[in-house]
């Protein structure tokens, strides 16, 4: 900063002072310009492009159709498409189950690695390992674990009784549960990390005071930890919901949406429509659907987080 600091409250709106303020603002813009340009090019532009594409009919394999503006036709198709209905159901089920489990498990992880004990560094690192493994690799691993012939799950449950081995991924119900399980295993520690950050800003004195007043461990958790952790929990929920809605790689590697579309999620359906079928307009409409759903969910969460924070400020 080369500009002199200006006391805004007492500065009159005249002469060189106003000019200095204008320069100050200019400099501010100049400084955020790279970040702004980056956001515009890599976030806003693709979103707008997808919106525009979703209003057109582009079918790569039928170039004679050309690129026609069809208004909301793609969205009308979307509403009637049984696969979209199914995929939306599967995706929402996945989001609800995995997010709830991940935040609950994440809280447990956070509470453990928040404590002071010997070897805490190791436990913290170990808790993060699943999160550090690329999802594609983790998916492949889970696919092997639930393999019908040499899977570890079968060995664990049935040992040598090969005749009783279960083809887990061949059952629509189990296949869905296994996708959720793999996601919970992988990302609980991420939720835990967010919650750990929340735990660390809770003043220790509150616990000491509560202890002196004779509060039990459970009372301390219920009346101190949980209320003060609420913003962090909401944040973890927000991140996990947004992320879970975009689930793709688990399905791509483990089931390809099968059996019988039991694990068909929106993003995979969108991928197949765009990349395999070459129906660019309709595929874009599916992406827009995913985008709008995530956006509205985020707005709800952010309002909730925001009001929580305001409440705390006011107190």
């Amino acid at each position, binding site marked *: 900063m080369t500009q002199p600091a200006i006391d805004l409250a007492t500065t009159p709106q005249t002469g060189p002072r106003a000019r200095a303020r204008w320069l100050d603002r200019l400099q501010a813009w100049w400084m955020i310009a790279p970040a702004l340009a980056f956001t515009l090019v890599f976030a806003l532009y693709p979103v707008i492009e997808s919106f525009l594409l979703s209003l057109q009919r582009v*079918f*790569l*394999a*039928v*170039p*004679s*159709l050309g690129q026609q503006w069809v208004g909301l036709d793609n969205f009308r198709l979307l509403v009637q498409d*049984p*696969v979209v209905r199914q995929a939306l159901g599967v995706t929402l089920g996945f989001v609800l189950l995995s997010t709830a489990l991940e935040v609950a498990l994440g809280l447990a992880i956070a509470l453990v690695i928040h404590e002071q004990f010997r070897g805490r*560094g190791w436990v*913290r*690192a170990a808790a993060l390992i699943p999160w*550090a493994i690329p999802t594609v690799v983790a998916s492949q691993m889970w696919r092997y674990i639930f393999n*019908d*012939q040499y899977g570890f799950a079968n060995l664990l449950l049935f040992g040598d009784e*090969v*005749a009783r081995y279960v*083809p887990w*991924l*061949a*059952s*629509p119900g189990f296949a869905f549960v296994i996708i959720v399980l793999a996601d919970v295993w992988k990302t609980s520690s991420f939720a835990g*990390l967010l919650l*750990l*950050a929340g735990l*660390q*800003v*809770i*003043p*220790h*004195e509150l616990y000491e005071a509560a202890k002196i007043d004779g509060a039990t461990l459970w009372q301390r958790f219920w009346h101190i930890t949980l209320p003060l952790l609420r913003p962090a929990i909401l944040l973890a929920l927000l991140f996990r919901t947004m992320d879970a809605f975009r689930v793709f790689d688990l399905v791509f590697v483990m*089931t*390809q*949406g*099968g*059996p*019988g*579309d*039991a694990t*068909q999620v929106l993003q995979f359906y969108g991928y*197949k*429509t765009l*990349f*395999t*079928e*070459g*129906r660019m307009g309709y595929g874009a409409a599916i992406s827009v659907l995913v985008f709008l759903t995530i956006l509205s969910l985020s707005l709800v969460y952010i309002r909730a987080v925001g009001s929580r924070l305001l409440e705390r400020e006011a107190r």
Partner: protein
Amino acid sequence: MGALQECSARPGKAFANNPGTGWHKPPGGVTPHFMGPVARRSSIAGWLASTACRRRLPLLLVALAAVAFGTWFSTTDLSSGANPSDGLPDSRVTLRFVSWKPDHPRAWDEAIARFQEAHPDISVVREIAPHSSTAYHDLLTQKLKNRDRTVDLFFMDVIWVPEFAAAGWVLRLDDLFPESERAAFLPATIVTGLYQDHVYGVPSRIDAGLLYYRTDLLNKYGYAPPQTWSELVEQAEAIVRKEAAAQPTLRGYSAQFKQYEGLVCNMLELVGSHGGSLVGEREGSSTLAAPETLAALRFARDQLMGRVAPRALLTYQEPESLAAFVQGQTVFHRNWPYAWEVVNNRERSKIAGLVGVAPLPGTANHRGVATLGGWLFGISALSAHQQEAWAFISFLSSEAIQKHFALSAGIAPSRRALYDDPALLDAHPHWRNQLAVLQSATPRPRTPVYPAVSHILQRFFSRALAYPAVNLAEEATTADEQITRLLALTRSAT
């Protein structure tokens, strides 16, 4: 960046205790009350950074090196012997060939080395795409639709030719590959390279569904290879029952019923042998709801899956189903011709020499049906080296090279004359008998929108097999309507 400097300066020290970082601990030494917890326990960012430095950085570097190496490796110039820099760098043409990951890499390396010997002026660079047909399709079409000029030639699955031709991605070969040349190939394979009376692809092989069976088990119980599907179920059930004591894990049948392209191939065979078809005779109408189709589905669901095949079939593609067969786990197995080489390979198979091949069964009123598969060579419409690409394709589809692949990789050739070659028939004695099956194999629907049609079929078939309670007729009608709408789109356009 700060984190990295931090750890190189004080390796092994926790971030928060570093006196250099005043942000964490004020220089006065007294911790202000309000930031107690943050300062006392190391901050998460600091902890992460220090962990990354101490434990993960080497790992990260190794991973980066691996990625870099992998990228280099997958696009390595495969011209054997001759180093481009010590040859004539300016006169050499580089051909970029996007290929799937081959089953028999050594056979490929050898074929390409032979080509380079004959054409020292051309160097071939292979870009290896995924092994799976659909994944390969997605990668290749991504390049083609972005008008990637670095692609010179590629493989096309038989089902892609209409799509590639309509989209203008593949070069028309009417002049390079005239009628007189095509006459040397099996007609069924030539047809797969046509779209609207023009030729776009040169068949590299022929594929058709075949029934593999255990000769030892069938002989032991006095059975001849089944002529009909219900015979197959009866034989399989009887053999499994009688072998139960010796081999409790033996099952009757393995095939490819996962929700993917292979499911369409398997179901086309079952539906066809029950007298039905996937798309109606009149182009543009679908016949999924016809009684023959529904009968075939019920058979697959209740007789094959319910009685003789493991439920795991719903997760099997070619490799998994073949693995079960070569491990001696099933009596019957449906696969493409390449499986012959694998089942008789003593290193990979427990049942080498105990396997026979037959046409797929039919039903009481209908003959068996085999799905036509295979791969064609195509040249990119945007390639700058179309003549050189053609030279490469002519070489790879020559009699000598097809014979090489037949002997070393078990690939069924597309050239008619090779089916009279004594050396070949020695290695694949059943090919003499199977030629009729291969030639009369049934193609899948030929339309530029095939990938979309296939997705509808995959969903319909997979639901029919995975959910016993599903209303087949209703789902068939829905799928029918969706397919009809798609096909109408292509007709209205032309």
